[in-house]
């Protein structure tokens, strides 16, 4: 409710009482409206809170978070980060849920970005067939609700793949079944931390090397093959340490025992379905954003860069992508937010995310609807604000770099 510049303000009106005079004045009117809106808004919130309090009181419930410290009593099988049993508390079950939501959101964002960029670029391909096929794929995925994609993939995995006893082997240690994809799990032995340290040291060295190389280039124009040297540093240094410490890494292979595979790692159908569906669904939106971003860089820029004698990939790297990114990043952020929020559809296939744990089973088993739902809302709010903050930071950085 911004007021327009006061150049056209009517002559001061002295008729009527104070209120009507204030009301006629454009600027003060806007202030009045804003105040009234705020008052009404807070009154409504207070009314809602009062309503909740009255209704809870009427059925004799109190608003309290004490239940978080009582025994959850239910099992969560999928908990890759946190040790959890049914004897743990609701609080811990909540952390398991948060971990699972984060896992699928982070994996989803990574895969969706990769797929989205690939599809976006392919959509602009000069090859008619490629761009048409990608176009059809994008239109199909974008226009079917993501819940159906999730159910579809889950259904396909569960009904078409064989049970564990007839699992399809891929090589000796990989198995595909309708209970998930079983792969060897790495077991880190003593001394592995040295390898990790070497890895970190290599990255630090690369950062310094890059700065130095840039300085040299600015001063003398000499260009080092930065990428290859960096890669060599990383692989060479880490690999050397790995050999020196006597290869402190072994594998835990999945083997069929009784009903299921034991050992190794399992990518369960619920995780796979949610991850893949969220990724390609979001990727189809990202593809369009990427396409729009690339098109938005005027053709003159590309031609000018070529005229300077830059090779095609340098044109992309130095001229097109930095400018396209400025257009791409803001809408990309909202796609990441969507993906994270859509991950709450996990409940449809029984992936134990935060909605299914604290906002589902804990809610039901304790009868604390208001409390658990408030917790879930706050958690999503934190996720969303964090993503926004990161993307804003990235956006600002891109702007500076491009200028």
């Amino acid at each position, binding site marked *: 409710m911004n007021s327009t510049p006061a150049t056209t303000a009517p002559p001061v009106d002295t008729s009527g009482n104070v209120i009507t005079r204030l009301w006629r004045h454009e600027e003060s009117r806007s202030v009045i409206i804003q105040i009234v809106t705020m008052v009404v808004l807070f009154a409504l919130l207070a009314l809602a809170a009062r309503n909740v309090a009255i209704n809870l009181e*009427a*059925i004799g419930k109190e608003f309290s978070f004490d239940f978080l410290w009582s025994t959850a009593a239910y099992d969560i099988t999928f908990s890759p980060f946190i040790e959890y049993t049914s004897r743990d508390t609701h609080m811990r079950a909540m952390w398991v849920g948060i971990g699972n939501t984060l896992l699928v959101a982070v994996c989803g964002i990574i895969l969706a970005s990769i797929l989205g960029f690939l599809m976006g670029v392919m959509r602009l391909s000069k090859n008619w067939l490629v761009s048409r096929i990608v176009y059809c794929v994008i239109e199909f995925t974008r226009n079917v609700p993501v819940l159906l994609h999730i159910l579809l993939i889950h259904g396909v995995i569960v009904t078409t793949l064989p049970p564990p006893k007839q699992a399809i082997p891929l090589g000796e240690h990989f198995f595909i079944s*309708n*209970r998930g994809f079983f792969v060897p799990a790495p077991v880190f032995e003593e001394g592995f931390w040295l390898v990790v340290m070497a890895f970190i040291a290599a990255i630090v060295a690369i950062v310094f090397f890059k700065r130095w190389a840039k300085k040299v280039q600015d001063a003398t124009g000499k260009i080092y093959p930065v990428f290859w040297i960096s890669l060599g540093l990383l692989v060479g240094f880490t690999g050397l340490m790995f050999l020196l410490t006597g290869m402190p890494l072994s594998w835990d292979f999945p083997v069929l025992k009784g009903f*299921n595979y034991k050992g190794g790692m399992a990518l369960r159908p619920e995780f796979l379905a949610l991850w893949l569906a969220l990724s390609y669904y979001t990727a189809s939106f990202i593809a369009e954003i990427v396409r729009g971003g690339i098109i938005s860089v005027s053709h003159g820029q590309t031609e000018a860069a070529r005229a300077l004698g830059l090779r095609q990939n340098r044109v992309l790297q130095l001229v097109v992508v930095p400018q396209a990114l400025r257009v791409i990043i803001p809408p990309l952020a909202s796609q990441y937010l969507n993906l994270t929020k859509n991950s709450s559809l996990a*409940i449809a296939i029984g992936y134990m995310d935060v909605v299914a744990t604290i906002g589902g089973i804990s809610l039901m088993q*304790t009868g604390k609807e208001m409390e658990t739902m408030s917790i879930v809302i706050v958690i999503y709010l934190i996720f969303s604000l964090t993503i926004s903050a990161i993307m804003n930071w990235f956006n600002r950085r891109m702007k500076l770099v491009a200028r």
Partner: protein
Amino acid sequence: MKFKPTLILSAATLALGITSGAQAGTLEDVQKRGSLNCVVSTGVPGFAYTDESGEWHGFDVDFCRATAAAVLGDAKKIKAVTSTGKTRFTLLNSAEGDVLWRNTTITFSRDVGVKLRFHGVNYYDGQGFLVSKDLGVNSAKELDGASVCIQTGTTTELNLADYFFANGMKYEAVPIETNDEGRQNYLAGRCDVYTTDASGLAATRSTFTDPANHIILPEIISKEPLGPATRHGDDQWSDIVTWVYYATVTAEEKGVTQANVDEMKSSKDPEILRLLGVEGNQGEELGLPADWAYQIIKQVGNYGEIFDRNIGPNTPIGLERGLNALWTEGGLQYSPPFR
């Protein structure tokens, strides 16, 4: 000022929320509305399911109909509010439903913590395990390492965790929302075992193409007393639901059936006369017409008739009366006197 109408609207809904959330007067609400809202399951054969024409049937639904017959004089005037294991109490407590008839186990925490009123046990049940014969498993103790389909938000989910923990066994929990989802995942082989109330297992098995290839293991690992529930704070309504259930049991005990209920009005047994409203003023005391129980039996039937019609030995579900026989026949179904 586009936002104004919306604001007024939400203010109105909030204000209305207060009135509809008010607790007493459920009977009046139902009579004014002219139909009874029952919280039922999303679908369990024999207990609550719809036929081709979309009409609701089943053991739980018949008790809902009995309540409608008593309160509105018409067993057809019901509306089914479907609920998963997780949504049922919220639906009841937010007044979406007037009463819950949905294979719901009475427990301490639901009675005291969730603040529900329970009204007796219309089905004595226990939790069992359903497995395919091909697995070659004969006892629940052999299930170490199995994948188990389990409905979230149920007592059975907690019993399962307790049972495997107590027996030092591990399992993969495959959480599902509805009975139908459980059935699909089980048949597709996503889980080795489906576990829920034994009655629910029998009902679910009856829909398989090869029911004979699946067995319910001998271990019954819990007590699942199933019964109706209402909200706190409306004693009159609680009394009505309680005595609707007792009326069906007393009718069976006294031999009053759908077929002979009219003749029974001239019975020599004073309790039957009180039940059918020929003598005394029990209907009035409940706030109902004098013939409330007559309408239940006339339109829906007594306990035994409801049982046999929906889940008894001659139905595809094929459940024996067992614990649910009358106390006079060695079972637990027992009604306090109508006096």
